[in-house]
């Protein structure tokens, strides 16, 4: 129990430090938030023209914007670049698990994205004239937390490819494209062609982005919500195992080769 508290303490410090560090880069944060907001906003614009009069789709995309900002992951920068620069050596010497560093940075960045992006979310909501059902939002919050965890694990897993290739940024970029296509940013899963829909619902991408937005937008039935939660928890378990396994082989390779 003591170890857990100690780890949480370290995590807290890490979050606070990254948070302060980024205070100096606030201009850059602004551009980062804009970059993240573009795809949900474009989805909002295009889909409200494709399906005129559907408030449900607008609600979905405003919610998606919020979820996107709260689940952003930059592990190819916070972690992979560390491997390329040889900085991993420092982290390996510390008594805490290496993942604490990127995790802390991740949470701090997400907080920043939410802070800086909040005006944007509010403006988008007002302009598209959407209103939210408070119950739906409450129902969506646990799934948001799970999605945040899952997306971190996914991006971190892809960032671990830096142990084997110079193209970690490309690998993560590919993952982001998958999230875009199948995770609910290109189109909400409810609009997927019927042949692909079951696939879309079961793949992890929905669980890390579109699912919470769909709940908040009141576009899912109770059964679908339950099934979605199930998928989220399943995928978290899968990715935790994958991350541990890939991390161990990666570190073995790194320390054998010398970084």
């Amino acid at each position, binding site marked *: 129990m003591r170890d857990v508290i100690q780890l949480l303490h370290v995590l807290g410090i890490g979050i606070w430090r990254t948070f302060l560090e980024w205070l100096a880069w606030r*201009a*850059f944060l602004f*551009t*980062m938030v*804009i*970059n993240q*907001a*573009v*795809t949900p906003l*474009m989805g909002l*614009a*295009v*889909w409200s*023209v*494709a*399906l005129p009069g559907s408030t449900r789709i607008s609600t979905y995309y405003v919610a998606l914007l919020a979820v996107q900002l709260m689940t952003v992951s930059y592990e190819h920068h916070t972690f992979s670049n560390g491997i390329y620069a040889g900085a991993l050596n420092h982290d390996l010497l510390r008594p805490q698990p290496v993942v604490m560093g990127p995790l802390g940075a991740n949470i701090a960045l997400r907080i920043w994205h939410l802070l800086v992006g909040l005006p944007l979310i509010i403006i988008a909501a007002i302009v598209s004239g959407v209103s939210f059902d408070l119950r739906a939002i409450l129902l969506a919050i646990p799934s948001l937390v799970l999605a945040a965890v899952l997306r971190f694990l996914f991006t971190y897993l892809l960032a671990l490819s830096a142990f084997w*290739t*110079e*193209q970690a940024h*490309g690998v993560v*970029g*590919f993952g982001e*494209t998958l999230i*875009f*296509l199948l995770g609910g940013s*290109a*189109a909400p899963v409810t*609009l*997927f*062609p019927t042949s692909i829909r079951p696939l879309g619902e079961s793949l992890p991408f929905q669980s890390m982005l579109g699912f919470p937005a769909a709940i908040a937008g009141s576009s899912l039935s109770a059964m679908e919500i339950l099934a979605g939660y199930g998928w989220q928890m399943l995928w978290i378990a899968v990715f935790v195992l994958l991350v541990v396994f890939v991390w161990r082989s990666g570190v073995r390779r790194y320390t054998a080769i010398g970084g």
Partner: protein
Amino acid sequence: MKLFRLFGAIFSLSLRRELAFRAHLVFQGLMTIVGVISGLAVLGIIYTQTHTLGGWSLGEAITLLGTFQVVSGILSTFIEPNVMWFSDQVKDGKLDHVLIQPVPSIFLVSLGTCAPLALSQVVVGVVVMVLGLRELGTLPTLWGVSGWLLLLVAGIAITWASRVLLASLAFWAPYITPDVLYGALWQFGRYPVSTYRQPIRFVLTYVLPVAFIATFPARALIHGADPLLLVIGLAVGLIAIAIVLLVWNAGLRCYTSATS
């Protein structure tokens, strides 16, 4: 003219440099293809729900995407690699080396490096355009193609000018990088500009003329060029270049370089 020969030399040197990294080459090609397939997939899904997007049919939208890809490719090849480093260069005083040389500094700074392999995006873009035209079942006229080409060139000139303009802000405020914003707004060009609602549409047509980049040329290709639009395009392009040259020279006067 000397500038053309210089440009050719820069291109061939950059090509030689890029060919040295083969893994990167393959990866880049893959990423381009994945990106394009993703774009087509999105259009596919959208058009299962509706027959028209801002007045554009599926074939038209695909042609637009292709044009967008062609322009993106040209920008990534010639402009992107330079603008990325500009504000760092101003901050660290690396601009000195460029200023000493008897070539217009704006040329060396904005076009001095290129990434020739990004031209693969252009190829992919042309392929997508052909797909779109097939979907439409039309064959473009000579007038349409030349209109497309002209508006494309005007669009590229305008984009170059606006990006260099944004980058020149580094002379007065070296700690902001406004160009990253450009990348985001750029994406709005992949859909017809009529899709967006009014205040945004105005901004995208007249303020940051993303519309010029893809929508106007594509429209010219499909429906034939509107002569008035061609004239406006040329005029705006030339004005943009003139403004940039003025601002650039003003910026150089304020350049303080890094103290050694």
